[in-house]
């Protein structure tokens, strides 16, 4: 049974090519498991990662953990083809710039659901915003697919593109988080993100600063976040708890 959106606090990400890592997910008790086909998988392991997916999804689903797969925009057709299986909760699509890209993903998922005997519309879609264009076109992007259940902010790519040089806090991200919040709430979507600090963020954030980042994001209307390391799951769950 699917969880309520507000119950998806910690989204623990693990590279999909390493089944041993995927086996450790349950011990960290994340609300959502994310099998990655994007950054954490080196190009030479992409095929292996895709080949592992069906088995990993089946096993993780048997542990009653919701599973999403983060696909790579550059290889989205092959990734979606390898991803849609019984037990999958949804797909995370990073870097959408236009609604037509989301419409294309929607059509691909539709076709694969039909082909693999999965109830139509069952697979969810999470959009991670990673570009200025994506933020500007957000209203249209969110209307391109009724599967979209959550939106989040891909901070690393945005930082590279927008080029802020943060000192004490990501002021630019407060603006972006606000814009995503307004659009997300307007369309009833979950908001994913945390109030990271420049010196303690993503993969390097310790448990205390992860919890603080989650607590402050919760006050701003966000209810979950991707965990770049397993140690962030527990503080993320605490920070986003009601």
């Amino acid at each position, binding site marked *: 049974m699917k969880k309520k959106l507000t119950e998806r606090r910690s989204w623990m990400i693990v590279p999909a090519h390493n089944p041993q890592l995927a086996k450790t997910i349950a011990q960290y008790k994340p609300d959502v498991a994310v099998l990655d086909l994007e950054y954490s998988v080196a190009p030479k392991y992409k095929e292996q990662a895709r080949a592992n997916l069906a088995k990993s999804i089946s096993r993780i689903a048997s542990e009653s953990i919701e599973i999403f797969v983060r696909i790579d925009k550059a290889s989205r057709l092959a990734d979606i083809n390898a991803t849609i299986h019984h037990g999958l909760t949804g797909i995370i699509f990073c870097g959408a710039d236009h609604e037509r890209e989301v419409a294309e993903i929607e059509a691909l998922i539709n076709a694969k659901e039909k082909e693999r005997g999965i109830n139509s519309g069952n697979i969810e879609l999470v959009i991670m915003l990673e570009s200025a264009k994506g933020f500007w076109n957000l*209203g249209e992007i969110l209307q391109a697919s009724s599967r979209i259940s959550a939106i989040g902010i891909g901070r690393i790519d945005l930082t590279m593109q927008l080029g802020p040089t943060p000192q004490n*806090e990501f002021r630019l991200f*407060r*603006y972006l988080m*606000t*814009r995503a*919040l*307004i*659009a997300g*709430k*307007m369309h009833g979507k979950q*908001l994913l993100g945390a109030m990271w600090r420049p010196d303690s963020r993503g993969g390097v954030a310790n448990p205390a600063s992860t919890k603080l980042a989650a607590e*402050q994001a*919760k*006050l*701003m*209307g*966000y*209810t979950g976040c991707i965990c770049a390391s397993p140690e962030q799951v527990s503080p993320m769950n605490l920070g986003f708890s009601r």
Partner: protein
Amino acid sequence: MISTPENQTQDNCFDTNKKIPKYIRRSILALSIDDPLLEKKSFDSWADAIILDFSKKSNCGWQQDIHSRMPEAINIAAKGGAEIFIRIDNKFAKSELEATIFPGISGIVLKGAHSAADLQKISSTLDSLEIARGVHSNSIEIDIEVNNATCTWNLLEIARSTARIGIFFLNEQELCINLGIQTEANLPFDPLEYIKSELITVATSIGGQAVGMSYPLSLASESIDGEILRKGILRARDTGFKGAVCPHPDWIKLCNSGFRPSEEEANYYVKVIEVFAEGIKHGMASVPMDGKMIDVPVDLRAKVYLEWAKRAKARDAEKQQAHHKL
């Protein structure tokens, strides 16, 4: 107008003939027409503007009830010299407008709008009601109370939907709830900072203005220590707000004195204008004063701020006169 070297500076900066801010509405107080002390509270408040709220009887006769009581309520609420507005719920706009539009009001405050289409419908209803009720055509202003995500997202198209739009303000408690933001001021920054920036920019872009308060006072609903409130008002004014909706009558006096250039600032701007005029006479384009450089934009700003101070003073005199009449 064809741009020439003589008028270019004015074109490129701002037009000193245009009123900035558009309205002197530093303090806005909401009162209910059901309040037996409506007359006294309005009169004693010294608010620049009053928003009248009403509750509907549960039976089907609410419209007739409000229609019969509203003209008197408008009349008594205006005795202290305040401009009068009626708060209208977007969901029931047509029936509420029919029950509340009468001579004596400056406008309506529309709560719960979502799109430009909402505004166009309301503006069209007002066109008919102005004729039917003997109110000057196109004189009833529409102010926007922003309390939901969709309204926030569509702010610019809403602002451009009708020439009746005047003021924008956030209902921060309701907007926070709608956005899932904590309504207690527990964050070290204003979670609505960027929405406020957009509100001010959008309102100003159509020749209107935004009213509002700085965080965390913007989430307060009670009387606040004078010095804290004074600083909060100064911060709100310097952010671009031209007034505030006062959650407590105690706020009004400080809002009236705070949302305008102070005496000290006015004296400074007088000096700026004099020094700059003297420099121009001597063929200078910019003039040093107290370690700062005075040039055309600074001179223009000084003129606008002095005009603002003068109009605020005139508004105070109007209210004094209204009080002395009785």
